[in-house]
């Protein structure tokens, strides 16, 4: 299903014995037979124990091949893999910050939080209105415990500016403790980490790196942390923002 220009939501029927993924985990997908590596995608939803949802933005050969896969075809996936987000404590509100396709990494978490009626604020940013993926987050429920706000760089929808500015704007208005969850471009992640640190709030981020094995064997997907290199596939993809060494030079990402 096309959900924005060049972004697609896939529903995969998984076998009955498929283990329930945790929010933050991902799967390694064979997108095109001729590619040497699988492609990692966050679990963006899991329904009835049988339907695994992936939200994919076309970026290169593999994602394009996957987007063009025929409806009804069989997909080879490995996973769920990796660690998971720490659920917020009873008293903490959850603040989700998603930039662009980063929505994919937080959507399953958002759904769980909604089901649990946890106090949640989801901030979704993108360049412009047509690109925004906020509608992929679950619909705000009654009672006001779960809210979605948007930001666009060009001001065509929601807050006019970066989603991180929206975060700064909102963070002061939160009542009680909060825990931040972020997924998006490197520069955004770095800025969220800075804001969290400045506000003394715990913050977890989902990090993307090119992957080969996906199971911690090849040491190909490492992320620099205060404790040295850690694998995004096994030690991550979720990291405590305070542990990460995020250099400006790496903002382009892998």
């Amino acid at each position: 299903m096309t959900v924005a220009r060049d972004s697609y939501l896939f529903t995969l029927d998984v076998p009955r014995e498929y283990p329930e993924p945790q929010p933050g985990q991902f799967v390694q997908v064979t997108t095109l037979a001729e590619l040497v590596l699988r492609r990692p995608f966050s679990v963006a939803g899991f329904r009835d124990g049988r339907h695994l949802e992936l939200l994919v933005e076309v970026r290169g050969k593999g994602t394009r091949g996957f987007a063009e896969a025929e409806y009804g075809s069989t997909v080879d996936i490995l996973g769920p893999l990796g660690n998971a987000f720490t659920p917020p404590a009873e008293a903490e509100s959850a603040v989700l910050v998603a930039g662009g396709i980063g929505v994919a990494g937080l959507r399953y978490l958002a759904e769980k939080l909604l089901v649990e009626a946890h106090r949640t604020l989801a901030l979704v940013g993108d360049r412009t209105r047509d690109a925004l993926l906020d509608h992929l987050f679950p619909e705000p429920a009654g009672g006001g415990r779960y809210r979605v706000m948007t930001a666009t760089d060009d001001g065509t929808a929601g807050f006019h500016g970066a989603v991180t500015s929206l975060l700064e704007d909102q963070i002061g208005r939160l009542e009680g403790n909060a825990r931040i969850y972020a997924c998006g471009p490197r520069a955004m992640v770095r800025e969220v980490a800075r804001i969290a640190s400045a506000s003394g709030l715990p913050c977890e981020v989902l990090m993307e790196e090119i992957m080969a094995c996906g199971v911690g064997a090849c040491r190909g997907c490492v992320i620099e942390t205060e404790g040295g290199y850690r694998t995004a596939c096994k030690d991550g993809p979720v990291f405590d923002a305070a542990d990460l060494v995020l250099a400006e030079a790496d903002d382009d990402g892998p």
Partner: protein
Amino acid sequence: MPDLSVAIGSLRMRTPVMLASGTVGYGAEYEGLIDFGAVGAIVLKTVTVQPREGNRPPRLCETEAGLLNAIGLENVGIERFLEEELPRASRLPAPLVASVGGGDVEEFAELARAAGEREEIAAVELNISCPNVERRRLPLWADPDRVKEVVVEARTETSKPLLVKLSPKAGDVVSVAQAAERAGADALVVGNTLPGMRIDVDARAPRLGNATGGLSGPALLPVNLALVWEVSAAVTVPVVGSGGVRTADHALEYVMAGATAVQVGTAVFSDPRAPSLIASGLARTLERDGLEDVSPYVGLARKRGGR
């Protein structure tokens, strides 16, 4: 039921399908995903004397029909390897081969002794493509004389089968192979990855943090196959083919070129079932051809029209 087993000295392998060093880590990471029962031997990730941090990321880059990696030999060092990783790996139902990488002759000797002492280890593979600590004109992997020294010293330190893994970037691989054989190698692995790089023209920078890396996968197959062809004609010890093996037919290409066994690396990333599928494919081919074991295939392409 044909018998797929092959041997390199006392290393007896159920099938000629080995797992290549560095691609399955210390093995346990792939437990439940790879059918280790179909695997001839697991070559564990190369260990060095001291732990190594490895290269700065990104460490991987996919290229047409290939993979570039610049892991930089990140590893926990021989001590923690022997203490922590080896016991875990030894639960797996396949013989273990320790891969060791030294910066000089002494380190190789030390590593071979330390690894060879452990009964969990069936054989030792010398990875001579490692970055050098010594500053010499010729890097180790290209210098037959130094390779000979390394193998001679390692040989005195262990009686376990010694495999020497050659680098395709050595201009004269045959001389290096012959030097290793004369020095007492029990088998030659041909070969490691080839240096390569890609540039991100938008970022105007190399795609790998280390700029260059090693090319593996299908793109490497014809190159290492030609080296197996050359090397196996020039030595008498078994040759193990490595580079781009994904199917039973690829394994057979290496065998018909002169290899006794193959190592599978990159293919495991796209499909952890690849090693067992290759083994069962080989078994089917043997059955089709009415053969009892793989030995009649070894070097067959040379006997038949190979010039």
